């Protein structure tokens, strides 16, 4: 069963992630009054990148990116086999640190600046991520994804604030405007391409692929707010996930990119207010 789940995740996640990314690009284009690329464009891009020669500035970049890739996959597997949510957060951090180190190792100005910003982003969203896990724990009595998914009431009933907070940091994690400060899907960044500046060809492809895996993982957490014992709750969760994703696209097109200090301040504030108050009430009631 566990291996089946892992296999399913490993196979389906990139498909779903790629497709979502395609939807994102298509809808973004339509928001901007453009025709937009074909739906399968992200896959074309990925295959192309795998076909291309990779340019590296040193020999350790691919090692770090490999670490990033492997640990993102690992984290996803851990989540979908029903592992410990806190450990999922920690493993995700580890993966991100690998990516950050890949950027630093390049020793190039834009990639280094990107890595500092990436760290800052991590600093911004990390509290809310942990708080979400804690929220699940208090609401359902367990950190295990398996147990949380089997609760009798959807956790969101207890965790509306956390849900909001999580959606908020999701913008950072999805690298969407206004929080796409370390690297962006859009061109014209003061960072050039930020952390991915020095990555190219198949190494870049790995990063893209990892992002898809990660997107699915994050949407999994969104879904976790919704699911409960009933089978149909999974359907609702899927719809909510899709909706959350499109919402992020909408937001992406609605805001200018903010500066790092606004990002940090607002994210921490939202964490403190939406998450903290939710936590306070939960502990008082439970």
């Amino acid at each position: 069963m566990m291996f089946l789940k892992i296999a399913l995740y490993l196979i389906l996640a990139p498909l779903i992630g790629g497709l979502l990314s395609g939807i994102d690009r298509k809808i973004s284009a339509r928001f901007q009054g453009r025709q937009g690329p074909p739906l399968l464009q992200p896959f074309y891009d990925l295959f192309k990148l795998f076909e291309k020669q990779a340019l590296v500035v040193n020999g350790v970049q691919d090692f770090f990116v490999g670490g990033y890739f492997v640990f993102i996959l690992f984290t996803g597997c851990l989540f979908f086999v029903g592992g410990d949510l806190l450990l999922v957060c920690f493993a995700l951090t580890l993966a991100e640190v690998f990516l950050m180190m890949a950027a630093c190792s390049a020793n190039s100005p834009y990639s280094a600046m990107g890595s500092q910003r990436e760290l800052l982003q991590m600093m911004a969203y990390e509290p809310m991520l942990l708080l979400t896990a804690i929220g699940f724990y208090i609401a359902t009595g367990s950190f295990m994804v398996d147990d949380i998914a089997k609760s009798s009431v959807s956790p969101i009933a207890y965790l509306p604030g956390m849900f909001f907070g999580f959606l908020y940091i999701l913008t950072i994690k999805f690298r969407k405007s206004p929080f796409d400060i370390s690297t962006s899907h859009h061109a014209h960044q003061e960072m050039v391409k930020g952390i991915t500046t020095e990555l190219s060809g198949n190494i870049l492809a790995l990063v893209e692929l990892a992002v898809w895996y990660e997107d699915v993982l994050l949407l999994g957490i969104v879904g976790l707010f919704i699911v409960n014992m009933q089978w149909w709750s999974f359907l609702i969760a899927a719809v909510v996930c899709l909706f959350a994703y499109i919402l992020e696209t909408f937001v992406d097109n609605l805001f200018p990119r903010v500066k790092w200090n606004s990002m940090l301040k607002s994210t921490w504030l939202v964490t403190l207010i939406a998450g903290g108050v939710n936590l306070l009430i939960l502990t008082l009631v439970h």
Partner: protein
Amino acid sequence: MSKRSIVPFGPHHPVLPEPIHLDLVLEDEKVVEAVPSIGFIHRGLEKLVEKKDFNEYVYVAERICGICSFMHGMGYCEAVEHVMGVEIPPRAKYLRTIWCEMSRLHSHLMWLGLLADAFGFESLFMQSWRMREKILDMFEASTGGRVIFSVNKIGGEMKDMDGDMLKGFLKILNEIEKELRELSKTFLDNKAVNSRLQGVGFLTKQQAHDLGTVGPFMRASGIDRDTRNMGYAAYSDIDFETITSNAGDSYARTEVRIKELFQSIDIIRQAVEKIPSGEIAVPVKGFPDGEYFMRVEQPRGEAVYYVKGNGTKFLDRVRVRTPTFANLPGMLETLKGSQLADVPILILTIDPCISCTER
């Protein structure tokens, strides 16, 4: 060692529409020092006067820049006309005025888009450029070019716009005006956008004066000067007021430019109403002899065309002082102490045009 990074910014950089280079000294992301370097687009076209005769040079002049192309051609022509004492027909003056303002419209809309892009608002960029396309269509229909027009010549214009065409244009302008109202809300009222513009790149009135700034960049710091008031082309017949703002920051510059968009639409309307019929050019005889400093208000501010002739068909000297050249010191001033994330905005709020600057 220090907590300062030293990094190159440009000449190739995705936020830069054109190559310019800055040595940035950064603390975290605070710009401690910015040393500019230009010359990546320098062609040396002023020296072409030795090879192209003064009539042919119009085509060079309008290729100083593809954004403010029309007024470059016109400014050069007016300067030579002054030297030669040529009076162009009134209809030509009005045609020039209309095209001037259309240039301003497309340039400012383009700038709005680039600014939006600089603060990472892609959809706003798309929206602005989408509107700009309408102006370009108008240009294409009237001049045959979208960015390089080739309608100016010494002594007048080469192409005319008939009544139907002008009427059609007015209709399009009405549409644009409506869309512009909607668009300006996002630029001027949106809190998130405001946070990226307000207080960013502040320049006092005194600084603006001392640094010799021109155009909307200067007017946003509260100096009331607009070269159009000198009344070249048909501006002396047109009723308009100089737009200024006192805030002196990037927001004020946006505001001034947006207001100028509405103003340009208004000027075109007035011009279409008043345009007299008649010839669009007079024949020009002889060769220029003498000198003149011609000043016109480009979208980015006052440009100076200095022409010196010697009585042959080759001029002695043509010198163009473009607004961006004058605004660069002001931009450097605003860069000091700014955030790296603001650097694109600061570079853009002067609406730099490097190919103009370097010629």
